[in-house]
Every structure is written in C-alpha cells, then in structure tokens.
C-alpha cells in the first residue's frame, strides 16, 4: 500500500469559508443592492470552483490536501481532500455555479430572494465541507450545516405543501442526525479516533459495531433517499424552486451516498466488510431502492415529482455500486455520482423552464412543448437518455462499468437490477420526451402556440431564431452546458472525470 503524500495547505478551509462569509455578506448587501448580491453569489460559487480546481496539481500526483484547524476542541476540525473528495467538491462547486447563474433569471421577481441567495450560498459551504471533511466529526458538522439551511430552500414558496414538506424534511434530517451522532460517538468509543483516510477504524465485529454500522446506514440513508427512509425526498424536491431542486437532487442527496462510501471503505474497511458480509444489508436495500423508486416514478404525473422518484432510483444504483465491492463497480459508482449529478440537475433546470414558461407541471399536458422550448427540451432529452443509459452518453459509461463490476464481484444477478433500472427509466423518461416532441394532439386546439411554432421556418431570411417563449440565455447557458457534458465527457478519449473515478476507486480499494 503506497503512502499518499500529504500537502498541508489552508485551501480547503478557505474554500469552505468563502461561501460562509459570502452568505452573510450577500444577505447584508442584498438589503440594498439586489443585482450586486446576485452577482456576488455567482462570484462566490465561481471562486469556490476555481479554488477547488486549483488543488488539481496535488491530486494528480496522487496526493492528499490536508488541513487541521484547532477549533472546536477536543476533536478539532480537519479537512482532507483526496481524489474522491476533489472530484465531488469540484463537481459541487461547478453545478452550484451553474444553478446560481440560472437563478439570476429564474428568481427574478420572486419573493424572499434575499433569503434564497443567502441560504443557497450557505448550503454550498456545507456541501463543500462535507465532501472535504477529514474526519467524521467535521463531516457531521458540515453535513448539518448543509442540511439545515436547505430546509429554508425547501420552504421557499411558503405554500402549505412547502411548509409540510419542509417540516417532514427537517424532522427526518434531524432524526437521521441523531443516529449519526450515536454512531460517531460509538466509533470514537470503539476505535479512539474518528479520522477518515485510514483503511478501517473499526476492526472487530461486535454487536455495538453493528449498531454503529446501522446508525450510519440510517442517518446517511435518510439523506441519500434510500428506501424506506426516502419519504421526505419526493415531497421536498418538487416544492423547492427549480434551481434549488436541481441542487437538492443533483448534489445534496449525493452527500449521503458519499458518507456511506467513506463509512464503508474507511471506517469499516473493505476487508472487514468482506469478512462480515454487512454490505449485503446495503446491497438488498439498494436493489429495493432501485426498483421501488423507478416503479413509483412511472405512476407519477407531476414532472418534478417523477424526477424526484427517479433520483431515488438513481441513488439506488449508486448505493448498489458501492456495496458490490469491486474496483470496476466502484469506478462506475463514482462516475455515476458525476453522471447523475450533471444529468439530474439539468433535468430539474429544464423542468424549471417548462414550469416558468408554460406553467405546466403535468406530463400529460406536455404535447407540443418541444416546439415551444426546443433547446430546453433538447437538453431534457439528452439528460433523460443519459439516465436511461443510452450510448454514447455518460450514464451508459457508468452503467456499463457498474454491470462489469457486478460480474467482477461474482454477483452477476445484480447486473439484472441495473438493466431493469434502465428499462424502467426508459419507461418513465421517454414518454415525456415523446409527448413533448411528437404528440400533436394539443397543437390544433391552441393557435397561440403558432406564434412560436417553428419560428425558424418563418424567419427564413434571418435563419436562426429561437421560439418566443424559449428560456433566456441566462437560463439556457447552464442547461446547455450540463447537457453537453452528458455527451462530451463520454465521447472524449480523455474522460477526465472517469480517470479521477478510476483513481478514487483504486484508492478506496487499496
């Protein structure tokens, strides 16, 4: 086992601190100058992204960026960014940047915008801290720092449903935190340390260590939307403003899966789990999550609710990948973090445009919107196909790696679960696309649509012009970028996230 180089820098602390300060500043500035606040938030997310990416030279060398802060003693805060944390925190900052940028237009004219931006930025701090945490205690603190402000994003609309959803979210999150706290204490009791980056803190299988495992499973499962602890998710994601839904679904629920990954491979260790077979608990639950999430998604007709259930199904794939315990499965798993985050946030952003421009949430009323919002629906289609796992897109790469990983692990039956997942994904994503582009039943009745219908043909001389109700450039740019990355990374011979995922898998499997 090669020893990783440690680079002690203050970079992670800085990355976490910037959005934290930025949130407070944004609220204060926003009281007077709205546009300054908006761009400040974009700037903060952008700065976080740049700083995250700037750690690449260390990471490329196979190193680990380490920071120890002597606050909150006796445990103290510590950050530790290895290749996995690097990939996910960069991804987080990037998608946050795009979603914040998208918000510039989306949130225009909404109520409570000041609150929205401040908490959005604060949540970024929590999410980044979670991915960069160097020990379970820091993880716990930032996990909470992310989860609690997110409730403000959920409740944003202040409708009855929003309040109920936010309460449900809050209580389940807090309930989960209690389990995490128990497991945190128990881990400390069992091993005398809560540091991550080792290969197994807990080495003896006792009832207490199993309870600790169960505590981690429950607390992180709540956040990851693992069935049967997922019930907050399909309520909370649809009611939040779309950019916030994109972040909830794209990034925040991934922190649960990320925590599970760390717990399984670093708190317990590969060899320990192979010996005890405790991963089969997660294996079973993840298959249930895949099938349940996808099956329920088919029966949902509210677009954002269907997307939320789809998130549950995709999280099932991610949880399945980590519990298969083979290197290829883990590569696919980490890549699926990336593929799903990109595609799912793009889908939610598209859903936001659809909602904003046409006022439609019900999939059955989507006939013809492909002509009204051609670029939006094209982005939607690409992202949906990614999640179905159609080549040559990102989702196919991860599902292919996951399936091969299932064979490597000697459990080929689980590849069937992945195939079933793809089929079910097709069954609930494709009808949306087909209705949007090919169903003509509504167009005849609504002549107003004609204004925007195929404007390209009408403006023959000028050529390229988008539909009159197509989203503005500010909303389009993030969606197009996300949709492009669904294809570009898979097709590029230098698949950068995949290489990082391979490195991360190798690191975890050591």
């Amino acid at each position: 086992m090669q020893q990783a180089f440690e680079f002690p820098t203050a970079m992670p602390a800085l990355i976490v601190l910037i959005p934290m300060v930025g949130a407070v500043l944004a609220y204060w500035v926003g009281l007077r100058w709205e546009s300054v606040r908006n761009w400040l938030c974009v700037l903060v997310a952008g700065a976080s992204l740049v700083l995250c990416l700037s750690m690449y030279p260390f990471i490329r060398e196979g190193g680990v960026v380490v920071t120890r802060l002597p606050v909150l003693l006796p445990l103290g805060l510590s950050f530790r960014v290895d290749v996995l944390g690097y990939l996910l925190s960069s991804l987080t900052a990037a998608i946050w940047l795009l979603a914040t940028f998208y918000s510039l237009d989306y949130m225009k004219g909404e109520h409570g915008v000041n609150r929205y931006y401040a908490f959005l930025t604060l949540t970024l701090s929590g999410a980044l801290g979670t991915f960069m945490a160097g020990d379970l205690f820091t993880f716990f603190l930032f996990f909470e720092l992310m989860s609690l402000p997110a409730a403000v994003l959920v409740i944003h609309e202040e409708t009855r449903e929003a309040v109920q959803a936010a309460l449900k979210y809050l209580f389940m999150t807090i309930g989960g935190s209690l389990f995490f706290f128990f497991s945190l204490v128990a881990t400390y009791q069992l091993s005398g340390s809560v540091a991550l980056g080792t290969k197994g803190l807990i080495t003896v299988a006792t009832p207490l260590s199993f309870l600790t495992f169960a505590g981690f499973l429950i607390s992180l499962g709540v956040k990851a939307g693992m069935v049967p602890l997922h019930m907050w998710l399909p309520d909370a994601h649809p009611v939040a403003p779309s950019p916030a839904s994109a972040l909830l679904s794209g990034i925040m629920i991934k922190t649960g899966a990320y925590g599970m990954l760390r717990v399984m491979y670093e708190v317990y260790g590969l060899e320990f789990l192979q010996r005890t077979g405790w991963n089969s608990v997660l294996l079973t639950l993840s298959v249930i999550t895949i099938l349940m999430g996808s099956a329920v998604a088919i029966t949902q007709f509210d677009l954002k609710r269907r997307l939320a259930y789809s998130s549950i199904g995709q999280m099932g794939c991610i949880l399945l990948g980590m519990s298969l315990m083979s290197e290829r499965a883990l590569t696919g798993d980490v890549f699926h973090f990336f593929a799903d985050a990109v595609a799912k946030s793009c889908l939610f952003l598209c859903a936001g445009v659809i909602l904003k421009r046409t006022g439609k949430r019900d999939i059955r009323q989507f006939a013809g919107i492909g002509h009204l919002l051609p670029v939006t629906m094209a982005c939607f289609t690409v992202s949906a196909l990614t999640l179905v796992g159609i080549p040559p897109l990102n989702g196919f790469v991860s599902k292919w790696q996951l399936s091969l990983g299932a064979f490597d692990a000697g459990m080929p039956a689980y590849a069937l679960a992945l195939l079933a997942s793809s089929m079910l994904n097709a069954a609930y994503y494709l009808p949306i696309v087909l209705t949007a582009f090919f169903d003509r039943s509504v167009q005849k009745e609504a002549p107003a649509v004609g204004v925007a219908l195929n404007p390209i043909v009408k403006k023959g001389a000028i050529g390229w012009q988008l539909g009159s109700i197509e989203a503005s450039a500010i909303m389009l740019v993030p969606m197009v970028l996300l949709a492009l990355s669904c294809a570009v990374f898979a097709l590029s011979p230098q698949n950068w996230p995949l290489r990082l995922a391979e490195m991360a898998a190798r690191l975890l499997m050591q």
Partner: protein
Amino acid sequence: MIQGLWALAEYPLPAGPRESLAPAWVLLAVLAVVPLVGLAGLLAPRRRVLEAVSVAASLLTLGLVAWLWTLAGEGALIARVPGVLAQGLVLVASREGLFFALISAGLWLAATVFAVEYIGMGPARTRYYLFSALCLASLAGFYLAADFFTLFIFFEVVSLGSYVLVVHEQTDEALAAGRLYLYLGIFGGLSILGGLALLVGLTGGTAMGPAEALRSPAGLLAVFALCLGFAIKAGQAPLHFWLPRAHPVAPTPASALLSGVIIKTGVYGILRSVSLITPGYGGGDWGLSVTAGQVLLVVALTTMLLGAFLALFQDNAKRLLAYSSVSQMGYIGVGLAMTFVLAEEGAMGLAGMGFHVLNHALYKSTLFMLVGVIYLKVHRLDLASLKGAGRGMPLVGAAFLVATFGIAGVPGLNGYASKTLIHDALLEGIHHGMPNLRVAEILFTLGSMMTVAYVARLFYTLFLCRPDGSAHPARETSLERGLALGLGLTMLYVGLRPNVWLEGFVLPLVNGFGYAGHTLKHLHHFEFFAAHPLQAVLPALGLGGVLFLFLRRRGFAIGLTLPSWSVERVVARSLRCGEGVCRLATVVDSALDPVRAVPVGQEACRLAAVLDSSLDPTRAVPLGQEACRLAAVVDSSLDPTRAAILGQEAARLAALVDSSLDPTRAAPLGREAARLAAVVDSSLDPTRAVPLGREAARLAAMVDSSLDPSRAVDHGRRAVGAAARLDAWLSSGSFWLRSLGPRLLRSLAQADAAMGEGDVQPAGLRRRGRSLMNLNVASLVIVGVIMISLLVFVFMGGW
C-alpha cells in the same frame, strides 16, 4: 482437410488484419456530415439545400464505404479509438461488415433521392433528413465495428434514431407503433447489454470471433441474450409483431429503409453472436453451434411461414409488404441457420443468406418505394381502392414487375438466385446425414408458394385490375422514372448474371468468415440455371399461381383474429401487470410516509400530558392531610396518662398469672389429664371408627356428586358475574377516591368520637382500647390500599 487446403491454395483467404486509421476517419467523416444536414435545414429552411446536402451525405457515405471495400480486399484494416466511452472503440474495415454497409449505403442513396419527392416541403423535413443521416452514419459505424461493444453502441443509436423516422407522420397510429418499436428496441438493447456484460465476465473482452470460454451454460446464456436482442430487430417470430405495425406507418422512404436495411442489422448481429460459439474453421467441436443453428432454423421457418401466411390476407399494401418482410427475414434466417447447421460446410448457407440480404434489400425497397409513388398520386393504401392505380405508369409498372418476379423467385431474376443457394444449403444438409431437413425443404417450398400468391395479388391489384369508377391513373414524374429504371435494371443485372455478383460481392463475405472446403469451390462455379435448381422452383411457382387464383375467388378474405396466446397480447398483458406492480409500489411507498405516524405521536403526547398532570404534587395534599389527621389520632393514643391505666391492668394480669403458677393448683389439672388420657384410650377402640368411616363414605359420596361438571356451570356463571361486577367496580376508577376516601374519613371520625367517649367513660376503656388498636391497623391497611389504588389509577386509568 486436404480439400480445404487445396481450396486455400486456389482461393487465398484475405491476409491478416493491418492497423490503419482509415475506418476511423471514414466514420468520423460520415458522422461529421450529420450536423451539416441539420445546419442546412436551419440556415436555409426554404430552399432545397437540405435535400442536396442529404443526398450528398448519402453519396459520400457510399463512396467512402466503397473505398474501404477496395482497401479491405488486401486484408482487413483495424483502427482503435481508445478512451471513448471508457472502453474504447475498435473499428475494422473488413469485407464481412462492408458487404452489409455497401448495401445499406446504396439503398440509402436511392431512398434519400425518393424522399426528395415523398417528403417534399412537408413539415419537420429537417428532422427527417437529420435523423436519416444519423441512422446512416451509425449504420456505417455498426458494420465497421470490430467488437461487440462498438457494435452495440451504434446499434442503439440506429434503434433510437430510426424511431424518429417511424413516427415522422406523428399520427396517433404512428405514435403507438413507434412506442412499440422504441420500447422493444430498448428492451432488445438491454438484452444485448446484459449479454455483453456476461461476455466480458467470461472472456474478458467483447471481441468477435470464436471464443472457447463461451462453451458453458453461462456462455450460451450470453449468446442467447445477444441473439434475443438482435432477433427483435430482425423481426424473427415470435418477436416480429412490432414490424407489421411500424413499417406501414413510417413515411415510405423510411419504410423502404427499415425493411430493406435496418432490420438486416439484426441478422448481422445474430451471425456475429452465434459465430462466438463456433470453433472456427479447421478444428474443434461444432456440436454447440450446430444445435444453435437448428434452433435458429426452427425460428426462421416459423417466421417465414407465419409472415407469408399473414401477408396473404392483408388489405393494406404497406402492411402486406411488412408481413412480406417478416417472411423474407425468415428466408434470410434459414440461410443463417444453415450456415451453422452445416458446420464446416456452412459456406453455402452463408452465401445464400448474404445474397438474399442483397436481393431482399433491393426488391423490398423497390416495392415499398413504388407503392409510395402510387400513394403520392392516390393517397390511399388499402388495396380495395388501389385497383388499377398503377396503370399509366409503365416504367413504375415494369420495375414493380421485376421486383415481384424477384421476390417470387422467377428464374432470371435476383430472388431466384439467392433462394436457390439457400435451397441448395438445405439439400446439402440432407446429403450430409440430416434427413430431417427434408421437412424444412418442403416448408421452404410452401413458403415460396405463398410468397408467389401474395405478390401476385399485389401486382394484379395495382396494375392489372380495372379501376373502379372515375379514378383516372396518374402520370409518373421523371424522378420516379429514374428511380424505377435504376432499381429495375440493377435487379435485372443481379438476376441475369448472378455469378458475377456471387463471385465479386457475396463470396468475399464468405471468405471473411474463413470458410473453405468443397462447398466454396462449388460456389465459385455455381450453375444457377442448371436443370436441377430450375426443377426445384417450378412447383413453388405453379402451386403459388394456383393458390393465387383460388384465393382471388374468395376475395382474399378469411376472418383472421389474433389468437389469445399471441405474443403481442402476452406482451400487452404483462405490461398491464407491470403497471399494476408499479401502482402497488406506489401504495407501499405512500404507506411508508412518516406523516402517517404523526397521529400516533400526537396520541402519545396527549397520554404523556395526562401522565404529567397526574404527577402534580398538589394532588397529594388531601392525602397528606388525611395522613396528618391519622398521625394525630395515633399521637393522641400514645398519651402516657393512658399508659398508667394500662400499667395497672398489666399488674393485675401479672398477679393473675402469678397466682396461677401455684403448684397446688396443678393437682386437679393432673386429674383432668388422667381423665383425658382415659378418654383418649377409649377413643382408640377401633369399633368406634365404624360410624366415622360411614361418615367419611357419605362425605366422599357428597364430594363425588359435587364433582359433577354440570354444577361447575353454575359456579362459572357466578364467577363471571362476580368478575363482571369486579370489573365494573374496578373500571369506575373514581370509586376509589369517591367512596373509599369518605368511608375512611367516616371511620376515622367514628374512631375519634369513640376516643372522646373513652375519656368520659373509663369503665368501657378496655373494650374500646382493643377496638381502637384494631382501627389503627385497619386505617393503615386502608391508607396502603388507597396509595396502591391511586398508583393503579394513575398508570392504568389514563389508558
């Protein structure tokens, strides 16, 4: 073996593969044209630029593929594109794949030219041409694939891309058929993907070509999964049912491509998949692949007969052609199956299959397009209103006749040549000790007979029937003339000089698979127009003619309904089941909602509140007061002045005891004791026990009668009554406080009063004193009972 070597010497196999980037560049060029087509549509929507670019793209593809074909004559060219899609793509320009690619590109060109007229300036034409170009480019990729991974990638793109072509008209019918096509395509794709994963698990890669590791149950499963996916696309029974729905609803150029080109991808896929379990030419055990071939043969014969039979009774021209495609895929399937059944001599089957792929592509595309030409004039597709619709279009009619004769297998036309080869492959099998193939041969002839009947009907209706009423025949345009002429002449050329095509085009395909042996030699000098194959085809033609005449008199109408076990219905039913499962999952899911636990929590909280209020110390105050009053009573009873009297009494008692201790008083006691002893002695007389025994017996009788269970009923009833009363008493929890408390107070008051009385009446003191002590004990017991009952009330009453 010696023969094989000899064949090798005379007809050298292509040299080993060389590394060259040519296939990759070709594919990149073909793919790069696709966005150009879209761009042309966007930038110049009102001009014919789009069509020009599309035709140019088809031409470019055809040219590049043909160039690769010539390059590949020197040996296959392999290009590796590492990193793409994690696994990396491997492309190969070999004549096996390019054979199919050339056919595809050639027909694509024809169909694109026809689309210029058919699609015209209709709606969404940019979309049509864009996805048409995408499909063509992906097809090129599909046939250039050197491993199954690459093959699968392009297969999926073709599947999804052609969906857009199928639903181009966007009618409800088209959308429904498109859904079936899409979802079956995705299902097939996932089946292939599963097979691929298994393949990687077993062999470590997805390379084509024989693999020893697959000769295991898991390996067969992998091959089966691959074949299943490809068989759906190839329209093999019983998974053919999407085909007669999807082909008629597509715009005609797309139908022509679907039938002529796209479903052939399935055939190529099956060919590659089953080749995995052959041992390769020149060695090993052929048993597995022969068995697989036999299974394929059964499937193919079923497909062939089912398709032809159903085509007989179709009233829609395009539906008829679609069923005909199913049937023709059965012919191709027979050739494919014979490739494996004949083991080392499979060259005959493979050549027949390849030749038939070419011919079917030619005549089926022609038929579809010419029906489309007529549709453009008449705008009808049902045969009843198409009577004589083709009159007045001589060139179209002539080309249609050539295609009809081709598909019917009339000697001198292209279908005859390939059918003869497939038929010969069957005969070869019979000669090689598989007499069961005689049945297959008879079924083959039967299929040909039905084919003759249905195409004859189509041609007869379109061109020979007298038109009903006023429908005057339309004229053909010059584009249509050119198309008909080009396709007709090609077919005639293939049909009249089959050896040229066999030698130059089909046999490179056979060579590519490494076949040698005497059949290959036989193929090089195959006599298509010898007496023997001509004799074989005559019964089919003759009987087909008879069948046509017979059915014409019946009006081609027999009521056909789908039998209840049809696969289509099974699929529909299982989909409904799936929907039910999804709904069930939703119910389960909503049952998991933690919000449902809220009322329970609320009740728990209310209970806690009750418990909490019962713990209120102020409730203990009356109790304390009572206790204090009791203590006062006890206290007053402890007054020492009362002890003096007690002391006197005690002294008197002591004197009494003392005097009773006088020994003289013991004498009468001794006397009495002696008398008692005498009595005891006399009582030991056994005779006295007799009455006792009698009494005991009577007692036993009484006990016995009391054990009568019927008496227990009464007891039980009484016990129940008592229990009910007890229950009622217990349940009125407040009883304890309401009735017991006052009773205690009353008894205490009585005691108090009695105490006062005692003070004035010392004479009654002794009696009163004893009762007072009893009272104290009783009150302590009562207080205890009250405490316990309070506790019981507190913890039980609230529930």
